[in-house]
């Protein structure tokens, strides 16, 4: 099935980790973003560890100007490098958000609502929150070209991964000016 975008959707192509931070200020709520490059992938348990100061030996450089995707995929199958890998609900990461933004993370990708603290943090750190297609894990798997564990391997499905992605689609839900989808 051919999936087409209507012409009325503004879209931006972004390379991560971000080299030119100005692009973050061009992004507005409801803009479509197409991401290429390497993204960090982790969720609840890794956030908890990072917030408590446990980095599992991962260099802070990994986080600088990076994008973080809240996800725990299923195991890979056949020709795919990851299994189904849709976003998880982001609100559970709200209380840990400052600990990752203070490391230099500029883009958070997940699904659903974030609280007012996260909106303020996006302004403070000039960061953005994007949502991608919740419940579409099989489709999103096609956008992931390489996947490797880079830390916290003892957490099993919740370990920290790095994905190389091509044309990973998302939508701005909180911009760096503090405007939100809600």
């Amino acid at each position, binding site marked *: 099935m051919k999936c087409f975008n209507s012409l009325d*959707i503004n879209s931006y192509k972004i390379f991560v980790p971000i080299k030119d931070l100005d692009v973050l200020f061009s992004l507005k709520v409801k803009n479509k973003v197409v991401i290429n490059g390497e993204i960090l992938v982790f969720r609840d348990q890794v956030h908890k560890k990072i917030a408590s100061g446990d980095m599992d030996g991962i260099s802070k450089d990994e986080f600088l100007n990076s994008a973080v995707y809240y996800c*725990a995929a299923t195991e890979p199958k056949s020709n795919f490098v990851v*299994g189904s890998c849709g976003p998880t609900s982001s609100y559970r990461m709200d209380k840990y958000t400052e600990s990752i933004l203070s490391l230099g993370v500029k883009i958070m990708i997940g699904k659903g609502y974030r609280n007012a603290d996260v909106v303020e943090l996006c302004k403070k750190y000039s960061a953005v929150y994007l949502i991608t297609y919740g419940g579409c894990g099989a489709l999103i798997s096609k956008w992931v070209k390489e996947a490797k564990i880079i830390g916290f391997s003892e957490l099993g*499905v919740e370990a920290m991964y790095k994905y190389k992605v091509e044309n990973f689609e998302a939508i701005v839900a909180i911009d760096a000016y503090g405007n939100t*989808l809600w």
Partner: protein
Amino acid sequence: MRIIEKDEFYFNVKNLLIQTHYFLPEDLILAIKEAIKIEEGLARDALLKILENAETSSLTKLPLCQDTGIPQFFLNVGKGICFDFNLKEILEKITLEVYEEEKLRKSCVEDPLFRKQNFNFPTIFVEYDSGKEEKCEVSVLIRGGGSENMTSFSLFLPSANFQEVVKYIINEVKNLLKFTCPPVVVGVGIGGTVETSMYAAKKSLLRKIGERNKNEFYSETEVFLKQQLNLSNIGPLGLGGKTTVLDVFIEILPTHIATLPVSVTLQCHSYRRRSIEI
């Protein structure tokens, strides 16, 4: 009397559980296609992605959603049916095997507080009210954390009126919708006891989209709630639009003179539901 043999049950139910992870129900696909006709922009794009995901999953056998959830089995056993095996044991075995063989995510932890030992297990509900003689109906609903968490329960005073209950349902659903993946289906259980109220809300999700409560009043209430919720402009994946709720199912149960339990649970668009008759 009919004896259902272990092999027959095992083979059919195992196949049912596998299919449920890769194929959305036809009625859901149709409802999404209808919604595409009335949406534009980001909302339309999101609905197209849902269809594209369904097609990808059926072709590649990557699960529809990475949250492979908890399989909830609902068995309805007709008159004269006997099992020559332990139902709990066989359903647990099927679950473990399917998740292992199909490389589905180990989405459960054995201890809820200490969060160790990822594995998979089913929940099992058995009823005996099937009108069909010598048949056993097996349904499965795969519930991810995002849907399961989006649940609300309240004990109203028995003097509460219809408007109060409706207001509660609308407010709760709008609030819960922010955290899940719309378009959703809403299951509502009114009356019963604490546990049967929630059970009714869950079990209502086994209905097909468009299947109304047989009682005219509740049937109209379902349609009214759906319309009201679709005015919220939350839209597919929260991106705005006319399609927030695909349907609302209400189940009612007799209740105690002193009680009025109301349960509400959301089902995300990854509506993994399937049934067979054995």
